[in-house]
């Protein structure tokens, strides 16, 4: 849409229609005591070239994954982004963040979302995927709410190894609802404590919510969890923060998950200081009417030609009002398109190859730091190590050597102030890992 500013003549006409003399009169109802009464304290205007210089200088202060080795993961992953993504998403036909309502003028966008949904179903092993939500944390929170609608129960069991930020968002979502969350700890292997889970399950539990690979990088035994949740009538909600793991691990749906929610940033979405990211959401056919968010379906027009439309909209706010399944009635259109392009460009084989590279490289570093590992459970591309010195101090030394270190766990876990979550992706080179291990061990 073009931005056309108003002419002074147009302003006069509008004021005349309102019976006013000047724009200030529009604000006369705001008490003088709360008005600023002076100009904003802003620097003088700059020319275009001055603005460019200003931002170049500011940008040069950034430390980016472009020019540093990066061992930071924890929900935001430094993966390679194929150039084809920028080239396709920059087409003006696609360049909107919004979900289109009108199938008459939006077939291209709707088809891209339909293909995205299909890819997510294939990756997660689920029947239905929505057009995406905001991010992994809100998708996990929405999955929690959905589990209470499906079961009519009001208590959920949340793994302590669900990403701490996801847990915070989940807590906010349920803080004013009649839903109780109980935390389930992990054992020495870093996996959900099966005994504690079994004793916490009861006839009022709507869902068990766990992440895999979990926040400590450990791959959970989803089948075992679903195996005890199902007989108790509880759903199994699997959150995935590292979506690339789906390229290698068995799909959660094949292991008994009822809802898969997660973060799709790994599929070609830039790190971008934490967002915009991509909320993945998929469920079983039998629960689709309780699913939040938009959904694109395939149909035929009056002449039998294939077409795409928004479907099952009766779940949504514009029809169902306060009884809608969610107050989210949009999606991350552009990021979903990015994921669809990423997955299509790599293909089944390519995705598996990238995932294998993550696994192999991470295990190379794991071997180098072998005696420092905290958990014995299997991992994908992240793992926790006990540091020989304070993790924050270690990170300062690493940065001095051009390396962005891992995440000090003390930030989220008071009993883990000596531990660091380390991530290795296909972008990490062997010499970077050797350097990391050298600085790490020299402490």
């Amino acid at each position, binding site marked *: 849409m073009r931005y056309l500013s108003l002419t002074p003549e147009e302003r006069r006409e509008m004021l005349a229609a309102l019976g006013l003399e000047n724009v200030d009169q529009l604000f006369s109802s705001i008490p003088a005591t709360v008005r600023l009464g002076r100009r904003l304290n802003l620097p003088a205007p700059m020319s275009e070239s001055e603005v460019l210089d200003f931002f170049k200088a500011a940008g040069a202060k950034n430390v980016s994954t472009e020019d540093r080795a990066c061992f930071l993961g924890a929900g935001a992953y430094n993966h390679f982004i194929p150039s084809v993504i920028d080239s396709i998403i920059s087409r003006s036909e696609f360049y909107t963040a919004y979900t289109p309502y009108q199938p008459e003028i939006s077939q291209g966008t709707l088809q891209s979302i339909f293909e995205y949904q299909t890819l997510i179903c294939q990756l997660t092993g689920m029947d239905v995927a929505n057009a995406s939500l905001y991010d992994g944390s809100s998708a996990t929170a929405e999955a929690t709410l959905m589990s209470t609608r499906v079961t009519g129960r009001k208590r959920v069991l949340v793994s302590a190894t669900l990403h701490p930020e996801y847990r915070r968002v989940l807590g906010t979502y349920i803080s004013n609802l009649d839903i109780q969350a109980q935390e389930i700890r992990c054992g020495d292997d870093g996996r959900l404590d099966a005994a504690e889970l079994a004793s916490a399950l009861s006839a009022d539990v709507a869902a068990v919510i766990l992440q895999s690979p979990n926040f400590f990088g450990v791959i959970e035994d989803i089948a075992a969890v679903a195996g005890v949740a199902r007989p108790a009538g509880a759903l199994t909600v699997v959150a995935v923060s590292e979506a690339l793991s789906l390229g290698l691990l068995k799909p959660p749906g094949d292991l008994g998950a009822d809802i898969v929610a997660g973060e799709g940033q790994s599929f070609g979405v830039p790190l971008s200081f934490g967002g915009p990211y991509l909320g993945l959401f998929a469920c079983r056919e039998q629960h689709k009417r309780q699913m939040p968010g938009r959904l694109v379906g395939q149909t035929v027009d009056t002449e039998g030609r294939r077409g795409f439309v928004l479907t099952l909209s*009766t779940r949504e706010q514009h*029809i169902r009002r306060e009884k809608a399944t969610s107050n989210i009635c949009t999606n991350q259109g552009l990021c979903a398109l990015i994921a669809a392009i990423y997955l299509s460009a790599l293909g089944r084989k390519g995705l598996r190859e990238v995932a294998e590279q993550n696994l192999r490289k991470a295990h190379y570093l794991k071997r180098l730091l072998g005696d420092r590992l905290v958990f014995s459970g299997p991992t994908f591309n992240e793992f926790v190590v006990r540091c020989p010195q304070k993790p924050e101090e270690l990170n300062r030394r690493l940065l001095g050597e051009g390396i962005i270190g891992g995440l000090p766990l003390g930030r989220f876990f008071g009993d883990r102030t000596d531990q660091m979550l380390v991530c290795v992706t296909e972008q990490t080179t062997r010499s970077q890992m050797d350097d990391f291990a050298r600085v790490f061990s020299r402490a």
Partner: protein
Amino acid sequence: MNVPKDLFYTKEHEWISVKDDTGVVGITDHAQKELGDVVYVDLPEAGSRFETGEAFGSVESVKAVSEVYSPVTGRILEVNSSLSDAPETINQDPYVKGWMVRVKLEDSTELHNLMSADDYKRYLEEELGE
């Protein structure tokens, strides 16, 4: 407009037929016509209890979704599970095969607040100009 005798009716276009203290509830012929092709019916679980006027389920058509309100207070004895596979039954046969729930009445005097077939016909003519 098909408005069978011996049924009781609500202003929200539900019907209930009562034998002893058990009622069978559905939506009227007028309601199904207004909704159009029914594509989904959401029904409660047997055993749940609803007060008069409380929504116990919903009927979804290609153009709208409507709550269905309980004409009486009582506990659900049985739901018409065949509607989940064949929701169009509500369009085809709203008063017999398209029944929605069987309910155990707690207070049969509540039926006095409902409309007779003649009342409902008049209501449709007057209120809705039919």
